[in-house]
């Protein structure tokens, strides 16, 4: 299925939804672009509320790409549906291009057809940060006392990762974009080079410790800008961090105490503005996202 010689074997790449293109076609109608005879058979990666994410190729069979498709919603009035889909996809592409121009680590936009409801972006190698963090936490002692002892000395790689995430978000915010849905699922950890990826994935001949140390290596790439917005306000930036903070605490409760490193690095990267955003974050935390309501 995956003809790309440079990417790891297809088996590894496919995620939970491991169905063939034919089965998927039966399940979900494909966008017209993927039914073209020269298209690489797509693999359905996720089925979210917004739409579906396929892995296919762009331009040549050895350039993998992620194709995000927002199918028409049957419940929505067709005029309203077309208007929303078009506006959202065009905006997403615009935000990605802007980030790319400013050097923020996001996938490059290859092509888009907002009216048809799809956008093709660069395929990011590696795994979501969520998966990597959980893998790393999973290898640590379960026993609470042992964990405490271990915590002090070997949380280093995770702290480093938190700092890289903080810096990436600061970079994003500096360009005047807020993500709108920051979670550790919406960040990828791209391995530094293909060679190291291979060693991490097949730890034969590599000591366990070495493999573990490599687990959290890589560049943080922010993905899924479906809810992004342009904003320079402290309030919106702080809300972005608050959403991540809450998501992080519920996804990785064992590493909750490390979130401060992320914020610290955010502040350092962002400078003066970072200080006022973090100040605002205190307010946002106190208020909670949820106000008290009447009636």
């Amino acid at each position: 299925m995956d003809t790309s010689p440079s990417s790891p074997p297809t088996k590894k790449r496919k995620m939970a939804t491991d169905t063939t293109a034919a089965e998927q076609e039966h399940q979900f109608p494909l966008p017209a672009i993927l039914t073209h005879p020269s298209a690489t058979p797509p693999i359905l990666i996720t089925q979210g509320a917004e739409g579906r994410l396929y892995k296919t190729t762009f331009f040549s069979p050895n350039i993998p790409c992620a194709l995000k498709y927002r199918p028409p919603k049957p419940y929505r009035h067709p005029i309203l549906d077309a208007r929303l889909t078009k506006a959202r996809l065009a905006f997403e592409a615009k935000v990605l291009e802007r980030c790319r121009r400013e050097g923020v680590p996001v996938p490059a936009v290859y092509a888009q057809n907002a009216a048809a409801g799809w956008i093709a972006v660069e395929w990011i190698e590696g795994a979501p940060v969520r998966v990597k963090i959980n893998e790393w936490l999973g290898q640590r002692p379960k026993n609470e006392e042992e964990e405490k002892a271990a915590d002090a000395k070997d949380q280093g790689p995770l702290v480093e990762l938190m700092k890289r995430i903080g810096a990436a978000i600061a970079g994003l915010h500096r360009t005047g974009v807020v993500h709108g849905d920051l979670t550790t699922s919406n960040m990828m950890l791209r391995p530094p080079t293909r060679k190291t990826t291979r060693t991490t994935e097949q730890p034969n001949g590599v000591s366990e410790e070495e493999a573990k140390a490599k687990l959290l290596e890589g560049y943080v790439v922010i993905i899924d800008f479906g809810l992004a917005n342009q904003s320079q306000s402290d309030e919106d930036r702080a809300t972005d961090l608050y959403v991540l903070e809450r998501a992080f605490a519920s996804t990785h409760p064992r590493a909750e105490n490390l979130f401060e490193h992320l914020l610290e690095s955010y502040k350092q990267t962002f400078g003066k503005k970072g200080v006022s955003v973090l100040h605002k974050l205190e307010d946002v935390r106190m208020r909670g996202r949820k106000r008290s309501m009447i009636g």
Partner: protein
Amino acid sequence: MPDAKGRRIALGCEGSANKLGIGIIAHDPLTGEPTVLSNVRDTFVSPPGTGFLPKDTARHHRAYFVRVAKKALEAAGVSISEIDCLCYTKGPGMGGPLTSVAVGARTLALLWGKELVGVNHCVGHIEMGRAITGATNPVVLYVSGGNTQVIAYAEQRYRIFGETLDIAVGNCLDRFARTLEISNDPAPGYNIEQLAKQGGRVLLDLPYAVKGMDCSFSGILGRADDLAAQMKAGEPGPDGEPFTPADLCFSLQETVFAMLVEITERAMAHVGSNQVLIVGGVGCNERLQEMMGAMAAERGGSVYATDERFCIDNGIMIAHAGLLAYETGFRTPLEESTCTQRFRTDEVFVKWRD
């Protein structure tokens, strides 16, 4: 004490908005299966072009409390001695009306020597919806004149995943009915729904305000009011043709309901559920139910909704939720039997669920 059949019986009093409702429910001691014994309601209806004010609504509730209570008791055919507890709405809601009903419930408790149970209005809606439809663990869309929330249950609480950032969807519809001077009888939302059925020639352009799992309605109402003013001035619509109140109602419904379905779908994807339960007064709207059904069907799930007897505020839901809490040992002592305008759904510890 339980009745002759060993059932536990509760009387519930609701009056957080313009409906005064008193209902009596029985729970089977073995299965917990609820039986509705009576469900009586009296609605305060204000003239077209106006809303219900707290002061007038409170007066209505005070004036009708005894009548409605007597009717509920008669219809249920239970004697006072068979009633186990008295449940009342503790909040959220409008202060005056809530107070009137709390005083009524307290009076009955003292008069009859029964224990009180203060109930969260939103939890009442959710529990009644679950009981009537048989939905086991749904994502709940709670939409009424005062509330707009997307809720899912997790670890002993109904957690709010998304909600309105300003006015409730029902408030948006009610106020637009006032702009068009549509009748408030039986309910402004119902009349908008009927009018919308005649519209649909054009879809007028309204803002669409979804932010993650939250949404906002005040801007939409403002734009709809502007369009209504244009219409009254005889100005044409986007296609150069004149448009009607029915077109406005249609466009408003299509827009706000699409937003509600979208945030519900996002919550369903987030928690991995394919059941959705709609509760609250706006939940009676058949167009909303239809749209939600189309979304749920695509996700391989189904939509659960109730009719106006249980969707619109009523006493029976307060009795049901109150009795569930009562069975876990929860009581509201007389000196704590207050009510509050602000009472979040996630503040309630749901001891009766796993």
